[in-house]
């Protein structure tokens, strides 16, 4: 049976947090669509992981251990996973997305903002971004798109505009084509599998077990293939300053890694604040604020990553900031262990 010519799904809500990007805003909208609470899911796991062999030039970069999907990586304590589909060409790419929407499924698609008229990067900067497609009108030649990253957009664009964005080679053409270029978009889209009924309830018991798992993760044994846990975080940041000392270009890699760590840390801070309010546990709220402090270090590291290339920030300044981050992170983990004992 062919897909209907016109579809508009209901129940799509925009979601945003000031320290996260399109991976998280789109994931939150999808979770909400399936009546799964977004923050309780995306903010639970807090970790540090960096896989040097798997740094992808994407706004939605997040480190994924081998065999782990993107959504498993951002919500490892919940029954959710994702599969990247890479259609053969743009035509197949549109058909697959259209069929998903016609079937009632909003679709997270990779796009190059250079071709999207609602993005500030339109006809200016190439990048590798995520938007949600949740409707279309083939007679009108339009597609319905939701994008919560400012400037928030929830409206129709032409199908050929979306196709150009999805089929882009995403080239690096000028000095502001940074970080997320040189990776063809390839019409990719994400299939998301989740079992909403199997999601754990957000209870104090869940909070306890989550804190326990996070602490175990941070103190896990070092890995030979990736930087892992608090020791891995310390070693990774130290390595960046050392490489900068040797004249290596660390900008893009550090920017991507810092963005992922920032988002993860900030959402966990928010999750702790929520738990503190919901279960009348002021120490959880205080712990959340301490985690936010670590997030703010990552804000600064992310900016430093760009400024080291011009020499505006030295390796020593990166090193000092990194050491403060790690010291504050150690302190938070100690506090977290103490809170857990009394919870």
């Amino acid at each position, binding site marked *: 049976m062919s897909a209907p010519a016109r579809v508009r799904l209901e129940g799509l809500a925009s979601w945003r947090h000031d320290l996260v990007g399109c991976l998280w805003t789109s994931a939150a909208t999808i979770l909400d669509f399936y009546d799964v609470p977004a923050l309780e899911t995306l903010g639970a796991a807090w970790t540090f992981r960096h896989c040097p062999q798997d740094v992808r030039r994407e706004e939605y970069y997040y480190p994924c251990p081998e065999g782990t999907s993107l959504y498993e990586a951002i919500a490892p304590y919940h029954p959710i996973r994702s599969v990247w589909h890479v259609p053969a060409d743009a035509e197949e790419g549109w058909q697959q997305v259209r069929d998903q929407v016609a079937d009632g499924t909003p679709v997270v698609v990779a796009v190059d903002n250079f071709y999207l008229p609602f993005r500030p990067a339109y006809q200016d900067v190439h990048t590798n971004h995520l938007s949600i497609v949740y409707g279309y009108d083939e007679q009108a030649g339009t597609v319905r798109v939701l994008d919560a990253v*400012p400037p*928030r957009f929830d409206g129709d664009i032409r199908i050929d505009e979306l196709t150009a964005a999805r089929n882009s080679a995403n080239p690096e053409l000028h000095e502001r084509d*940074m970080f997320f270029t040189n990776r063809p978009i390839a019409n990719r889209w994400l299939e998301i599998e989740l079992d909403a009924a199997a999601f754990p309830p957000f209870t104090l018991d869940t909070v306890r077990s989550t804190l326990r798992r996070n602490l175990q993760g941070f103190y896990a044994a070092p890995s030979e293939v990736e930087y892992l846990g608090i020791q891995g975080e310390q070693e990774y940041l130290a390595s960046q300053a050392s490489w900068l000392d040797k004249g290596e270009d660390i900008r893009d890699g550090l920017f991507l890694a810092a963005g992922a760590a920032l988002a993860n840390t900030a959402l966990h801070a928010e999750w702790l604040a929520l738990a503190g309010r919901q279960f009348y546990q002021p120490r959880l709220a205080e712990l959340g604020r301490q985690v936010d402090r670590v997030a703010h270090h990552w804000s*600064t590291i992310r900016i430093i990553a760009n400024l080291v290339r011009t020499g505006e920030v030295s390796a020593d300044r990166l090193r000092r900031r990194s050491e403060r981050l790690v010291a504050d992170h150690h302190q938070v983990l100690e506090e977290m262990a103490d809170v857990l004992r009394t919870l």
Partner: protein
Amino acid sequence: MTTTDAPQDLVSSDVVPVNLRKYFDNRGLTAADQLADGEFNIWFNSFPAEELPPPGSRTVLGGIPFLFPAPNHHHKDNFRCAGQWIELPPGRYDWIYLLAAAERRSEDPVYLHYADGSVDPEWLRVSDFWAETPARFGEQESLQCTRLHYPRHIQQRMGPAIWRTRVPVPRETELVALHLPDNSAIHIFAITLVQSGALA
């Protein structure tokens, strides 16, 4: 020692704008015909000068007068925090008010130096300048724009903000200097020192 050369009508013994021009090292404000000169953030965005107070003007935001930045001879109008030492007109102040904006929100201690040699850290916290991003640290006042300058175009419906934030001065003794944090994410446009009595 007095480091301010703010217009006299802006200065009283209890409200003292600080002239920061010699510290400016970043161009955050551009006119519509100067888009390519903007460099506020890592993407070379800038605030639309036409929507902000005139350079060097007295700007009152939520009852606090600021000396709105006029570009220095390098055409810079704000600075990234990089551990600057800022000498102040000595005085018994209660609050340090700032016009500031961050590339993603951030925070760090700023060291307050007093005439008697005492030093205390206090928190400097600044919310994100990015559009559609509410204040995170309780800032009540801001200079809110409706559009954002990009090097090659003006983005409507993308309004950045410069926040009015403040740092407390707990000691009831003379404050003489600030030692700012080394935090490249935080930009400062203006500082005004205030005694509580001035706001009555």
